[in-house]
């Protein structure tokens, strides 16, 4: 009797505990991350650029409430920079000459090339993999990104965990469903899709499989498919992926992944699944890039780097080997399934990565440089481009957007970011995103100003 009571009580505690931790994590996420800002963009698209629909927030902001508090970690971010518009605008005059009317912000050109793809906006849906939160919405996200004309990545382990063409898990699309959802919704050749292959995906030769898939042949011919070598992830550079999997899946995957508990011996509902981060040296990485170009001549080659201390050198090596685009994921990025210590203390913040991107560019880099990690607005896009990036990748904003309003949420969000970027750029007297430069930026901190060679706004 006592035993049963005890077990009931412990179950209640457990359930309550789980519930509480869910609520807590939900609350802390909305407190530390600008969920509402992204939600309103996802709901309202361009209209969300003005806080008209959130009058309450608007008012609070005016009163100096904590609207800008979310998104402030303990290290410096792009939010420590401001944009510095000039009063005299000779470029606007030139643009007026071209248009024969006063230019508007909508005249700012955002179409460009990123990593060998023609895009509507230099914004990339960062590669998200098999993790529950990204996997479930994978198809809608793909449709939205394709319709918005921006590049999308598909992360590691999707084929191995969720199936290549046939589904392995309920409610989770297979890799090919996500791929086709993207490719079949592209418009006028804008966009492109890149696919990662983990050490474990390589076991089944994922890239070879994609490259020899008859259904994808015409898309390779069009040049809208690429492969992304992953050399790390923002929040956990140097670490592999950890996921929990069901027993059925664990039994299937036990030859390919490292499972600390053998599902044939230990009976549990869920098992930890570890995936290796992969070993790299200069020779390995550059040969890998060449091998990719050699084996898949019609695929673009992208490389995703974590926030490593030797970024400048790695970027240069990737570029020299002929990579189409290099994404640098700052430590605020790729937070899904990352250990807390890594989230806190491992790797360079995004702003520091941007500094290194600038340094690498001075050495001569021919690849497109993409930066990501805690970026979520048109202002972040403009600041990153002004610091030398060619595009920005985002992850969480797209997950929130797609969960709020499906594929429409994604297109709305992109539309909003585009409008913001156009406004800011036009205010800076530039009419193409490509023309943004460090002169457009000012720093609120002296040390950042010195390090990034920006003007210190109070001096």
């Amino acid at each position, binding site marked *: 009797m006592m035993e049963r009571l005890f077990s009931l009580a412990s179950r209640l505690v457990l359930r309550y505990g789980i519930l509480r931790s869910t609520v807590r994590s939900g609350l802390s996420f909305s407190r530390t991350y600008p969920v509402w800002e992204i939600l309103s963009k996802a709901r309202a698209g361009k209209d969300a650029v003005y806080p008209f629909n959130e009058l309450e927030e608007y008012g609070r902001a005016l009163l100096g409430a904590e609207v800008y508090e979310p998104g402030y970690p303990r290290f410096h971010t792009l939010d420590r920079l401001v944009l510095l518009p000039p009063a005299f605008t000779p470029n606007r005059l030139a643009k007026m000459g071209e248009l024969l009317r006063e230019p508007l912000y909508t005249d700012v050109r955002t179409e460009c090339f990123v990593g060998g793809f023609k895009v509507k906006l230099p914004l990339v849906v960062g590669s998200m993999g098999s993790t529950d939160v990204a996997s479930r919405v994978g198809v809608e996200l793909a449709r939205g990104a394709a319709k918005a004309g921006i590049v999308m990545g598909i992360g590691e382990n999707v084929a191995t965990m969720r199936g290549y063409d046939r589904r392995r898990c309920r409610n989770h699309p297979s890799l090919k469903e996500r791929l086709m959802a993207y490719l079949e919704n592209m418009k006028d050749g804008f966009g492109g899709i890149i696919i990662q292959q983990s050490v474990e995906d390589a076991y089944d030769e994922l890239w070879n499989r994609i490259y020899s898939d008859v259904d994808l042949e015409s898309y*390779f011919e069009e040049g809208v498919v690429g492969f992304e070598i992953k050399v790390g992830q923002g929040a956990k550079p140097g670490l592999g992926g950890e996921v929990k999997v069901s027993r059925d899946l664990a039994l299937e995957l036990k030859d390919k992944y490292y499972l600390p508990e053998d599902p044939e011996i230990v009976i549990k509902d869920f098992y930890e699944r570890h995936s290796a981060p992969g070993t790299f040296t200069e020779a390995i990485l550059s040969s890998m890039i060449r091998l990719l170009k050699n084996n898949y001549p019609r695929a673009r080659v992208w490389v995703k780097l974590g926030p490593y201390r030797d970024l400048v050198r790695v970027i240069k090596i990737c570029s020299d080997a002929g990579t189409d685009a290099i994404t640098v994921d700052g430590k605020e990025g790729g937070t899904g399934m990352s250990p807390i210590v890594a989230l806190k203390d491992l790797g360079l913040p995004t702003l520091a990565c941007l500094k290194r991107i600038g340094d690498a560019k001075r050495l001569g880099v021919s690849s497109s440089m993409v930066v990501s990690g805690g970026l979520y607005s048109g202002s972040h896009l403009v600041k990153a481009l002004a610091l030398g990036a060619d595009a920005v990748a985002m992850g969480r904003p797209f997950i929130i957007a797609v969960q709020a309003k499906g594929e429409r949420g994604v297109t709305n969000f992109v539309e909003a970011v585009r409008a913001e970027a156009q406004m800011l750029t036009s205010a800076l007297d530039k009419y193409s995103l490509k023309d943004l430069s460090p002169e457009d930026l000012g720093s609120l901190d002296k040390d950042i100003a010195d390090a990034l060679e920006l003007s210190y706004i109070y001096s």
Partner: protein
Amino acid sequence: MYYFLFKFRHHDVYFTNLFEQLLNHTKLKAFVMRSVEVRYHPSVRQLESMTSREGYLEELKNLLSRSYRLVRDERYKVVYRMQAELLAAIREYLDSRGFVELLPPIIGPVTDPGIRGAKQVTVDFYGSEYKVMSSAILYKQMMATTLGKIYFASPNVRLEPPETVYTGRHLVEFVQVDVEVAGADYRDAMNLAEELLCHVIKRVREERYMELELLGRELPAFSPPFKRYTHAEAVDILRNLGFKTSRSTEIPWEGEKILSGLHDEPFFIYNYPRGARGFYDREDPEKPGILRDFDMLYPEGFGEAISGAEREYTSEKVLERMRETGENPVKYKWYLEMLRDGVEPSAGFGIGVERLTRFVCGLEAVWMARPYPKLPGIYSP
């Protein structure tokens, strides 16, 4: 459909200026070719006009869906007889030089990953996965260590990318004679390869001149040594012709065809850059980034004949090279353990039997060079 069934044609006219032809090819439109004497065999030109025709793929699918009809055609009968002769000639040469022919492995836990964009075939093996050999490469080193000189007549399967259906030189299922010599370096392997080819050509010219005549094939006698270019030199030749080629990758198929069209005799390209080949091609210890490997190409636009190399034979070096394909080395456990146990340094090559047949018979495409061909993306008997 009748197109492929026509009887014996006589190819004695060579078209010397293929400028126009090259420019017509979509892949080459972007390049401005300077006037140069590219001599393609009429069959090679024939293939170009066949593949550029609307509906080629459909025709091919129709034809191959009843490939049992093809094998009854007179021309094909001659081709098959010729193929038997070629295999016999290869065996005659190798056997006379002390090589031991071994039975080829068909399935195993892993196979050759160093193939351009092609997928391997997986089969269920009592609940575990086995691969169908895409080449016997992983089995050659230990057999050479044991027996000194060995070869397999090895059937291989590679699910090539669908685009390769147009190249005229890719088959999903094919046979290669896979040769390995313990203690040899890649130059020894090149010498062996050219002598082997010369012997084979000599024998068919002597024994099968009737068939050659029926096929309308004028086959000159070749004599070693063949011309040898480093990969860098080959790239320079192509670049001078206005054909864009990377120094760090294999030469694209179109590029190989052009180089091949510039020659009347087979020739070698050696020292490919690291990253262009599988982990088993040995990196030159004195020249990092350069591999001690080679390809032999047929003349007249027929392209690649033989691919060979000196082998990496230490597990440390192979582990590093394996990472190039992004794989977990645990997959190759038995192979790595074998290397750690110790194998002798060796070198070798593989010669594709269907490609050899295509060249000797002067056929338009390699699928004509074997019964019941399997082509990328085409389901056929």
